[in-house]
């Protein structure tokens, strides 16, 4: 058999089905995801996701950075929900070091994480709408996301990859004018979300392309390890914010929206309702923001700026922290937080020295992407795009 014949046989599996590469350069694959799809006409027979095109070695690089620098590294993993990466990593380091985070820092973290959940879900709405023909959704959702990114810039200094959460607290305190910005933004977002829900939930094209497409059963989802809105759309009311205490969510009043059928439409509804719930949390957070320190004291964080001219110990501490980095006691810890995509877990191991010995990132998108080969067979090729949009993978999170 000649090489050309062999290649043709590789492409044409038999007379009826054909293998098609979707991606890695494809507008609907959310970055650089490649799907090898076996098609029978327009019907999908099998899907094989081929990942790794965005692998940047974040875990390996974390081992070369000190405990504080590492925040700037891990925040790039899931680049649409930076705060959650920082939160999980910082919580892990704090648990290893036995550092208690002051309430104000925890509330700032809670509020920014919920803003981040909104900005991440807005990207889902924008790209999902773009892929399924609701194109104006892309401009609307990105418009609001831009306002949220402006708020991030005002608070943290940068729009993405903030490195704002640090082990022991946050990098900078909130200023009084931030409160005004946040309250204005809450008003805008609340009215816009109502519009979006109306816009999509009553849109016959959106409903028909999503309803009863990509149905995932709850037992399959649990056995796969799927978490987040995809699991909740199957009717499983699991949310780490309710059952875990990494942030003071027990002091907030909010609901966990769940779906019934586990199809793409329910995933959309769950995310849509989560936007409103996140707004509720933000409103409560800004109303009840406690005063006090924005970071802990101790060896993990720099000394207060005003101590430096008067205290030799503060100068030594400052110098040691920024030349050598803090040292974290030996141990292993796994911290899981509820990111917009599900359980984001950080397994951090320390050998007692100045750098993480191992920093493993359990990206929710990585696990959730295994849904695609499970549910896509039997649907049309166009439905595969809807399924992929509803899984909402971020390739930075999948490939790390």
């Amino acid at each position, binding site marked *: 058999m000649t090489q050309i014949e062999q290649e043709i046989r590789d492409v044409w599996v038999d007379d009826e089905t054909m293998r098609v590469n979707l991606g890695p350069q494809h507008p609907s694959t959310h970055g650089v995801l490649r799907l090898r799809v076996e098609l029978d006409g327009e019907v999908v027979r099998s899907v094989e996701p081929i990942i790794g095109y965005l692998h940047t070695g974040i875990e390996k690089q974390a081992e070369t950075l000190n405990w504080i620098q590492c925040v700037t590294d891990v925040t790039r993993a899931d680049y649409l929900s930076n705060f959650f990466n920082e939160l999980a990593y910082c919580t892990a380091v704090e648990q290893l070091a036995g550092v208690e985070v002051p309430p104000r820092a925890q509330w700032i973290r809670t509020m920014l994480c919920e803003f981040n959940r909104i900005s991440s879900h807005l990207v889902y709405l924008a790209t999902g709408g773009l892929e399924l023909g609701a194109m104006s959704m892309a401009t609307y959702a990105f418009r609001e996301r831009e306002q949220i990114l402006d708020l991030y810039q005002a608070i943290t200094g940068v729009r993405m990859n903030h490195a704002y959460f640090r082990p022991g607290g946050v990098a900078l305190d909130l200023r009084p004018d931030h409160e005004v910005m946040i309250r204005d933004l809450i008003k805008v977002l609340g009215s816009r979300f109502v519009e979006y829900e109306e816009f999509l939930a009553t849109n016959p094209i959106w409903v028909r392309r999503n309803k009863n497409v990509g149905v995932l059963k709850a037992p399959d989802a*649990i056995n796969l390890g799927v978490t987040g809105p995809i699991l909740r759309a199957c009717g*499983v009311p699991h949310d780490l914010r309710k059952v875990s205490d990494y942030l003071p969510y027990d002091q907030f009043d909010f609901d966990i929206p769940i779906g019934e059928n586990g199809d793409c439409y329910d995933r959309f509804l769950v995310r849509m309702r989560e936007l409103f719930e996140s707004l509720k949390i933000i409103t409560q957070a800004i109303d009840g923001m406690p005063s006090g320190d924005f970071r802990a004291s101790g060896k993990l964080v720099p000394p207060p700026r005003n101590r430096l001219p008067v205290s030799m110990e503060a100068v030594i501490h400052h110098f040691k922290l920024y030349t050598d980095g803090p040292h974290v006691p030996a141990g292993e810890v796994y911290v899981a937080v509820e990111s917009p995509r599900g359980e984001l877990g950080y397994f951090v191991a320390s050998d007692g020295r100045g750098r993480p010995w191992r920093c493993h990132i359990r990206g929710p998108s990585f696990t959730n992407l295994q849904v695609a080969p499970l549910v896509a067979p039997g649907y049309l090729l166009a439905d595969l795009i809807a399924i992929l949009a509803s899984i909402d993978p971020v390739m930075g999170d999948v490939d790390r």
Partner: protein
Amino acid sequence: MTTAAEYSARLRERFPELAPDAIEVIDAIDMPTIGVPGADIQNVLRFLHDEHDFTMLVDVSACDWIGREPRYHVNYHLYSLDNNARVRVKVRLPDEPEPHVPTATTVYIGANWHEREVFDFFGIVFDGHPDLRRILMPDEWIGHPLRKDYPVGGVPVEYRIDPAYVGDNVVPRDARPAAGGVPVRLRRDRGRLSHMTWTGPPASGVPVHHGSEAEEISEEGKDA
């Protein structure tokens, strides 16, 4: 909340054929942690899945404690949706080129990609895995990047070099050959690289300055 000692006692009760010290209770600050022999991992996971409602395997990860014996730790993080409980099952594997452990995909299908990732990064072979291939690194990659003896930045940068620029023999722009240049051969031999960041066995108690080693020019750099 069930402690690691209780899990260990129940496991011993359930599997009396195991050696008395096979199930180990490990100190951990975050969740009950038990160490089990690699050969029994499927039985242990099946037991925890069926009888303790650990229906979800959230993560499989590995850690390379080079210089210690056993060298590799494989951590299975289990979660119980009904009880909101977590447990870590730890398998420790010796320092071999290809450590083997049975797959967890017979109990949790979601372990599939996680085990491929651990295989890709650490070279730990999961026996019985349906499709054990590299997942994030390219298929033809040599070496397992998250092992501690694998260098950071160990891949030569592929670029093209203009022969007119080699050495001191700089030629004016308009006198250079028009196109192309000669592609530099991409070398796959990782063994010769010298950008090592690993600085010795862990936990000697002495802080190490990673950045202080002089960065030698690698063989590749000299060639170029």
